[in-house]
Structures are given as structure tokens and as C-alpha cells.
């Protein structure tokens, strides 16, 4: 609504500001809220990470107690996975899906708002556990019982409620996305006309609906075991702690694909633009996403190779886990195939995207190493695993999100970011994460366990390199905040609708920033594409 601001007093202006941001049903504003929330939580989770790395800088260090260290480890994992990367990717979904399909908004705008505002509530619950009597949750983000049931601090119940809230948020978002993509495409737009980013979110939304309820049920069982005298996971009462692991990882493995598939989607939008070539093998990219989604349901026991599961299970899950590398590899080859003989330029989004391809592949290789069950007996619960998942998550998903921000920020704010600052951010981040996480593979092979506050002196050198890298990466993110702030505040050259030469997609046919309400008049896909002139 347009208000003549000269006639309003401060209270009225504040009222309008709050109403706009608290009650917005606009997909662009909600997308922005997701991004800002994610950025704030990135620094909270990042602070915990730096505290961890500070403690691990020296063997025998005691910056703070090992009990607090366990809480840092737990909260760092929970926050980064559930309150940073997932909301960031939801932010991209909200901003871009309606723009990419020529829809005026998401299918259910008010539920969209509700889904977002659940997250600050959930994150308050999670962060406040640090300040409650007893400790914050200290049993690792995977929350295995009996450590998380019998021996857990009272604040665990807050965590369980928070997880329920986050789950409901994701589920509403997922339903919204599926309905939007299936129902609100511009007339004449077939599913195989969808940008790969939309495909990735369509599939991810189905994955979310399939597994988030399983997590909800599992943490409910935890809650019942803690307070209602049930024995789901308590051997004394006839239950089994291993049941928890099966239930959790049935959720947990698809969860990591939920995180990485939209990241793949972002990369699939960026690389063709800066290669000035269409994405190589569109059909196979779509089939690969679907294949990865299906396979992700039948690999979960690879997190449990050392728990004493039968040999038949070890063999089966080893094979399915190796199998999932195939569609992933197809995607990597197709990104490379897109760049091959393309007219490449290396703006900041492209730098992050190319790094993604290389570094995610390295993370994938360590994943294939982990899939070899006999070898996993050595790797499991060591720093090798920590190195693996930080490569696929930080050098993978986070880099992809950062690439996406650089790519679409001029579209969203209307101002080009400073390429120099972007490049500085990129190189510092690249050096930082490789220094931080590559040594972890060797630490794991040498025998350093994970989730420990102190370690044998033999591991000192590599831990110090890792801590150095972590601090470089952490502080480099301040440059990112500067870039974003400058763009929001309008410092920098104006961006046109077609921000990037040769960028394909309906979002580039709109002005930068697009109007608050876009695609208000229904036009057919053919008409919209004609306007795009590509």
C-alpha cells in the first residue's frame, strides 16, 4: 500500500513498518525475511564454530569447560543445518519460484508468512537453552539416546519443541512450493520447461514431506521417553537405543539431500549464464535429481555401519550408497559440460559456482570412501567424517547459497554489488575453508575422534591449521555482510532488468528490483518468453 509518509507521525510509521514485515504475504518480502534471518543465524552458529576452533587451537587448552564445548558442538550443528542453510534455501524458493514460472505469488501467501515466523520462534527456543538452568543440549546434533533422554539437561524439551516448530515450518513451505509449481505456472509452461532450480525445489519439497514427519515422530518419542515413562529407546523397558538411530537417520539422510538439491539447482542456473551456453543435458539433470531423491531413502544405514548391523545390511547399504554417487556424478559432468567451449567470465557468482563444483566433488569423493563399510570402521566418528560433511555443506551448500545471493542480489535490490569486494570475499572464503577442512581428513585418518574438547598432542599441527582457516573464513563473512548492506542501501551502480548478459529465465524480464506485485496479469508462457527476447 502506498502511504504518503509526510502525513504520518513516528508511531504510525512504526506501525506500518511492523505491519509490513510481520504480516507480509508477499513472496519477495518473505524471501527477504528468510535471507536476513538466515544471515543472522549464520553468525550465531559461526560464533559457536569459532569458539570450538579456539578451544581446539591447542591441546590441553581450557578456554571454557568441556561441558560448554559439548553444547557448542551441538548447537553449532543444529543451528547451521536447521536455522541457516534450510531457511536460506527457502528464501531462494520464495523469491524465485513465482518469478521463474510467471506466477503473481506463492499459492498460499498467508501460510507462507506463518511458516517464516515460526523460525524466529524456534531459534529463540534453541538459543535460550544456553541461558536456562542446567545446560543447553550437549549430546550432538544427532541427539542419540540415552544421552539425549536419560542424561540430558531439562532444556532438551525446549529443543524438541523447537524442532517441531521448524518441522511444521518446512512442511508448510514444502506444500506451498509443490502447489505453486504444479498449479501456478504460466499457461503453456510444461514441467520440462521449468528451470532446473524449480525442479530441484519441487523434488526437495516432496522429500521434506516424506521425512520431516519422521523426525517429528522421533523427537516425540524422545519426549515421551523423557517424561511419560515410555521405553521407546530404553533397553530396560524393552526398547532399543538403536531404534532411534534407524528412525533418525531415515530422516537424516534425506535431510542432507534436502539441503543439497536446491543448492544444485542454484548452480545449474548460474553456470550456464557465465558460460553463455545453455545447461548441458537438461533432461538428465532433471532425471538425476529424481534419482538422487529416490535413492536417498535407501542409504540411511551407512551412518550405522559400526553399530553391529548384520552383514547383509552392511553390504546392501554400501552398494546403495555407492550407487547414489552415479546421478550426482552425472550432474557434475553436466556442469563441466556446460562450461566446456563456453564463453566463460569469472564474476563472483561464477567463482563460487566453479568452486562448488570442484570442492563438492572432493566432498563427494570422501563420501564414497566412507561408503566402503570396512573402511568406515576406521573413519566413523573420526574427524574424517567432519571433513567430509563440511566440504559438502560449507564448500557445497553454503557456497551455492552465497553464489546465489551474488547472482540475484542485483535483481532483488536493483544495485550491482562491488565486484572487488565480492572477489575479496571469495578468495578469503576459499582459502579459509580449505585450510579449515582439508586437514580434518588427515586428522581423522590419523585417529582423532570427533566431538572432543581436547586431543592428543600428535594432532596439534593440523588442528592449528584448521583453526586458522576457520577464523579466516569466519571473518571473511563480514565482507559479505558489507556487500549485502551496500546493495540494500543503494550504494553502487544501478542494475537493469537483464543484470547478466545471457541470463535465461523469466526473472530477468522484470525490472531490478521487480515490482512488489509482478506477473499480475496472466500471460501465457509463449507471450512471456517473447517479451524476454531470447
Amino acid at each position, binding site marked *: 500500500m502506498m502511504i504518503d509518509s509526510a502525513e504520518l507521525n513516528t508511531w504510525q510509521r512504526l506501525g506500518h513498518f511492523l505491519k509490513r514485515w510481520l504480516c507480509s504475504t508477499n513472496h519477495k518480502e518473505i524471501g527477504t525475511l528468510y535471507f536476513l534471518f538466515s544471515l543472522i543465524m549464520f553468525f550465531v552458529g559461526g560464533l559457536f564454530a569459532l569458539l570450538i576452533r579456539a578451544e581446539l587451537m591447542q591441546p590441553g587448552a581450557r578456554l571454557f569447560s568441556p561441558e560448554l564445548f559439548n553444547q557448542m558442538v551441538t548447537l553449532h550443528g543444529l543451528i547451521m543445518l536447521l536455522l541457516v542453510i534450510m531457511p536460506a534455501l527457502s528464501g531462494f524458493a520464495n523469491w524465485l519460484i513465482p518469478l521463474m514460472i510467471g506466477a503473481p505469488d506463492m499459492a498460499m501467501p498467508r501460510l507462507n508468512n506463518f511458516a517464516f515466523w515460526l523460525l524466529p520462534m524456534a531459534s529463540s527456543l534453541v538459543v535460550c537453552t544456553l541461558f536456562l538452568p*542446567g545446560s543447553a543440549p550437549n549430546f550432538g546434533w544427532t541427539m542419540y539416546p540415552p544421552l539425549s533422554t536419560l*542424561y540430558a539437561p531439562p532444556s532438551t524439551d525446549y529443543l524438541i519443541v523447537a524442532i517441531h516448530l521448524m518441522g511444521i515450518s518446512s512442511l508448510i513451505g514444502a*506444500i506451498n512450493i509443490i502447489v505453486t509449481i504444479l498449479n501456478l505456472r504460466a499457461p503453456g509452461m510444461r514441467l520440462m520447461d521449468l528451470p532446473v532450480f524449480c525442479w530441484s525445489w519441487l523434488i526437495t519439497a516432496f522429500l521434506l514431506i516424506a521425512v*520431516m*514427519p519422521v523426525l517429528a*515422530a522421533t523427537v516425540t*518419542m524422545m519426549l515421551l521417553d523423557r517424561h511419560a515413562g515410555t521405553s521407546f529407546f530404553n533397553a*530396560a523397558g524393552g526398547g532399543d537405543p538403536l531404534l532411534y538411530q534407524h528412525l533418525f537417520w531415515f530422516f537424516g539422510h534425506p535431510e542432507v539431500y534436502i539441503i543439497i538439491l536446491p543448492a544444485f539447482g542454484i548452480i545449474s542456473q548460474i553456470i550456464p549464464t557465465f558460460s553463455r551456453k545453455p545447461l548441458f543435458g537438461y533432461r538428465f539433470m532433471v532425471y538425476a535429481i529424481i534419482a538422487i531423491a529416490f535413492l536417498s531413502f535407501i542409504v540411511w544405514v551407512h551412518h550405522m555401519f559400526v553399530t553391529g548391523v*548384520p552383514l547383509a545390511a552392511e553390504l546392501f547399504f554400501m552398494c546403495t550408497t555407492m550407487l547414489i554417487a552415479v546421478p550426482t556424478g552425472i550432474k557434475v559432468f553436466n556442469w563441466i559440460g556446460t562450461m566446456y567451449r563456453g564463453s566463460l567470465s569469472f564474476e563472483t557468482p561464477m567463482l563460487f559456482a566453479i568452486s562448488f563444483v570442484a570442492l563438492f566433488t572432493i566432498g563427494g569423493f570422501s563420501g564414497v570412501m566412507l561408503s566402503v563399510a570396512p573402511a568406515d570402521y576406521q573413519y566413523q566418528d573420526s574427524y574424517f567424517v567432519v571433513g567430509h560433511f563440511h566440504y559438502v555443506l560449507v564448500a557445497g551448500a553454503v557456497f551455492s547459497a552465497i553464489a546465489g545471493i551474488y547472482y540475484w542480489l542485483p535483481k532483488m535490490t536493483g544495485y550491482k554489488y562491488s565486484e572487488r569486494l565480492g572477489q575479496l570475499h571469495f578468495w578469503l572464503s576459499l582459502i579459509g575453508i580449505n585450510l579449515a577442512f582439508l586437514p580434518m581428513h588427515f586428522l581423522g585418518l590419523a585417529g582423532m575422534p570427533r566431538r572432543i574438547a581436547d586431543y592428543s598432542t600428535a594432532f596439534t599441527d593440523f588442528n592449528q591449521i584448521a583453526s586458522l582457516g576457520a577464523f579466516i573464513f569466519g571473518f571473511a563473512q563480514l565482507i559479505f555482510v558489507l556487500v549485502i548492506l551496500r546493495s540494500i542501501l543503494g550504494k553502487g551502480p544501478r542494475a537493469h532488468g537483464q543484470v547478466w548478459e545471457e541470463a535465461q529465465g523469466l526473472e530477468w524480464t522484470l525490472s531490478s528490483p521487480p515490482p512488489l506485485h509482478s506477473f499480475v496479469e496472466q500471460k501465457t508462457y509463449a507471450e512471456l518468453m517473447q517479451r524476454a527476447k531470447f
Partner: protein
Amino acid sequence: MMQVIKKNLIPALILLTLSMFAFAFALIPLYNVLCKNLGINGKTAKRASGKSTHIDRSRQIRVEFITNLNKQLNWNFYPHIQHVYLHPGENILIYFSAKNNANHTMTVQAIPSVSPGIAANYLKKTECFCFTQQTLNAKQKKELPVLFHLDPNLPKAIHTITLAYTLFDRSQINRAPKTKLGFIT
């Protein structure tokens, strides 16, 4: 057709969500049934089996006995012997000593565990103190019997089996240990 799908999409997705929630709970009996019938649950039977009649004298299996006390339970609990050599099919009676060191009556449940897990199906107990809860008065001592045999169908590759019992306090089922800052006090 597309109209029908579009009209029912939201109800269908909500139904899918709720079904997956129910599915997670359903997994508990599903796991129990499937793993039991495939013999891969690593658990011994909760009910007694008959005594064995046929003995396979061609090989001997070493069976070891281990005891654990859960959560610093104030009991003594140990087997009379550390290990035996058995032919598959041979019935054997083993005693475990249990003493309640506390000053009040306590009830415990013994939970067995067999290693390797795949051998659990073949360890047939005719009588076991783990089938029921055991109540001992303050300072009372008792000899607890296990009468079992190994099924002659035990895979030839298995030469050693470990039978471990853990005693869990069932006197007060809901009692959790007191903790301070994550430490048990």
C-alpha cells in the same frame, strides 16, 4: 484429470504428511517383526524354547559370559564361570550370582545381548532369569540360572559367542539421574 489432481493436491499432500508421521510410529512394530522373522535383530527370544535333543559333536563353540550393571547399580553380579566349550545342541546350565548391596528391596531386569548378532537367533534358552524381573531384599544374595543350548544350525563360521547380561534397575522406572551442567551428580 489434471483438474482432479489440482483440486485435491493440498488435501493429498497433507494426508501424505500425516501418513509419514504415522509411518514413523508404525516402523517400531515393523522393525520388530521384520528383524525377528529375518533373524537379524541380534536378540534372543523372550520366551523359553524346548530342550535340545540332537547334539552335533563335530565342532565345539566357545561361549563367554559377561555381566554389566547399568548406571552404577549397587549390586554384585557375576557368572560362576567365564566361558565354556559346548557342542551345538548340548544343553547346559550356567549360574550367575546376584547380590543386592543396597539397604532396601530392589527389582531388576536383566537384558541379554549376544555377540556376534547373527548368532543370537541360535542361542536357545530353555530357562533364564532374564525372562522375568528379579526382586532381592536388602543384602540378599541369589544364584540365577540360565539353561540353554546352541541350535545345531548355527553357521559353521561362528566359533565364539559372547553372552552379556546387563542389569537395569526397575524399582523406580522413571527415575533419571540428577545432573548439573551435564555431569551426573
